[in-house]
């Protein structure tokens, strides 16, 4: 079985994101970029499934600028086998991303697709669900445990009420939560090896997918900032303030 894993290149989660003065977007110049965090969990899960003898090849797919190859290389250094980059701008909408993924699925025919539950830049939380609907494959979103059996899998999903378990037939799509596993670090020899692993480069036109955006960004603005409040000396003062000043208790 082949596993397809999608990885998005995003501003690193430790960076304090700044809105551009002209409200056209956020500052991306000279900003540290990394793999979208839950995508690391998706890569790690694929590696574990392969190590358990349940898969024989892991393909990494990223859609975006040339530099996404670095993100693909990171996944290859963790242990994935080969990569595919679909060259595009860095703001392809989930709708188009899901169409591109579906195209790749037609030719690669994976038995499982692992994705992140949410990209931490656009916070859309859409792409896995859309891809599932396009392919008519079962979806197991917000996965914190995946047990692959013969032709099915049992997936634990994190939902607002707690946990839910579903049984899905293979092939299926899972969107991974950060609690699914602890992603490994790439070892130096593996980083060296990854440099020789192949990355196939494609374009949206070649795949016949129209990626024209449907949503127009009118403006990107700074959220209202909160005033820093006061420090209280002790618990008694805190309770007094909450009772008589803020009147919330």
């Amino acid at each position, binding site marked *: 079985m082949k596993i397809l894993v999608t990885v998005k290149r995003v*501003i690193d*989660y430790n960076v304090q*994101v700044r809105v551009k003065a002209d409200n056209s977007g*956020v500052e991306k110049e000279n900003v540290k970029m990394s793999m979208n965090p*839950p995508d690391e969990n998706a890569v790690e899960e694929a590696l574990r499934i392969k190590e358990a003898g349940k898969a024989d090849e892991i393909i990494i797919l990223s859609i975006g600028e040339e530099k996404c190859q670095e993100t693909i290389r990171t996944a290859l250094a963790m242990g994935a086998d080969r990569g595919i980059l679909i060259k595009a701008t860095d703001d392809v*909408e*989930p*709708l188009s991303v*899901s169409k591109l993924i579906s195209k790749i699925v037609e030719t690669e025919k994976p038995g499982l697709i692992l994705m992140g*539950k*949410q990209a*931490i*830049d*656009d*916070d*859309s*939380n*859409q792409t896995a*669900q*859309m891809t*599932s*609907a396009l392919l008519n494959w*079962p*979806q197991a*979103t917000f996965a914190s445990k995946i047990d692959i059996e013969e032709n099915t899998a049992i997936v634990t999903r*994190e*939902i*607002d*009420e*707690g*946990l*839910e*378990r*579903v*049984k*899905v*037939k293979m092939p299926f799509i899972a969107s991974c*939560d*950060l609690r699914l596993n602890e992603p490994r670090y790439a070892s130096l020899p593996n980083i060296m090896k990854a440099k020789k692993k192949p990355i196939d480069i494609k374009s949206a036109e070649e795949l016949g997918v129209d990626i024209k*955006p*449907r*949503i127009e960004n*009118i*403006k*990107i*603005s700074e*959220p209202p900032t*909160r005033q*820093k*409040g006061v*420090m209280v000396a*002790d618990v*008694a003062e*805190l*309770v007094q*303030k909450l*009772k008589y000043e*803020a009147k*919330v*208790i």
Partner: protein
Amino acid sequence: MSILILAEHNNLEVKSSTLNTISAASKVGSEIDILVIGSDIENIAKEIANYQHVSKVISLDDKNFEHAIAEKIDPVIVSIADKYSHIFAPATTFGKNVMPRVAVKLDVAQISDVINIESEDTFIRPIYAGNALATVKSNDDKKVITVRPTSFDVVAKDGGSGIVEFINFESSETFTEFLDREESKSDRPELSTARIVVSGGRGLQSAENFKLINNIADKLNAAIGASRAAVDAGYVSNDYQVGQTGKVVVPDLYIAVGISGAIQHLAGMKESKIIVAINKDEEAPIFNIADYGLCADLFEALPKLSSELDKLNSIEK
């Protein structure tokens, strides 16, 4: 403008997220139909028909739809989507699971987690964990939208006079089977709608110590929240998590105890009316957004807080 809303419920009760979503949709137009899908939901359908702004309830009451399996729900919506210009659902794990499927089948881009409605095609949504707000205009002919419940009021549960229409739907085969659910049961207010939330972080150090938080929550009739670090460490279950990848809360009072204030946590609570932070590190970023900061060891502060609250309660009695 005709609007369809996918209602969230658990076959017994309507979730308050449905009331917030109706209120959001009413900013776009006044023709609002509510789709209720479930099993044994007669009472729920009738209840919703009385809600403010509701014109019609479309009820699909079928044992086959008892568990909210996204793959079964989206075809129902798509089958009636023709009549609507806007389709709304709450941005809860329920709505997030279903709506992108509807959007892609209608070939439109979904607008996720809307916090403000500017016009019928222009919406505001947070990006980058709320570090920026995007004003976006949809150029699709149909709008598929999830709304952040806490950003909108709830509608009144009466005053409406909607009719209830019953529909049937023949599902095609799905390859996803519901097995079971592990829901946290508690007598406390629900986290996403509570007036007061007391949250604990890694500073609590253990599940055992986390009971200090429970104690304060009991005295304030508050819901309990947690940081991702506290959930990851197993102090409490995942449904307590507040933040970018957890729940968003907007209580009158949010008390953060032993939480450093990472942006991913702030994404879920920084709109709270009053924020209190208790942390022993005076440099902790949480103090930058707190209305009242107390730099103290929580293991001393929480027992004191507990007895101060007792004093207050006894004065009132």
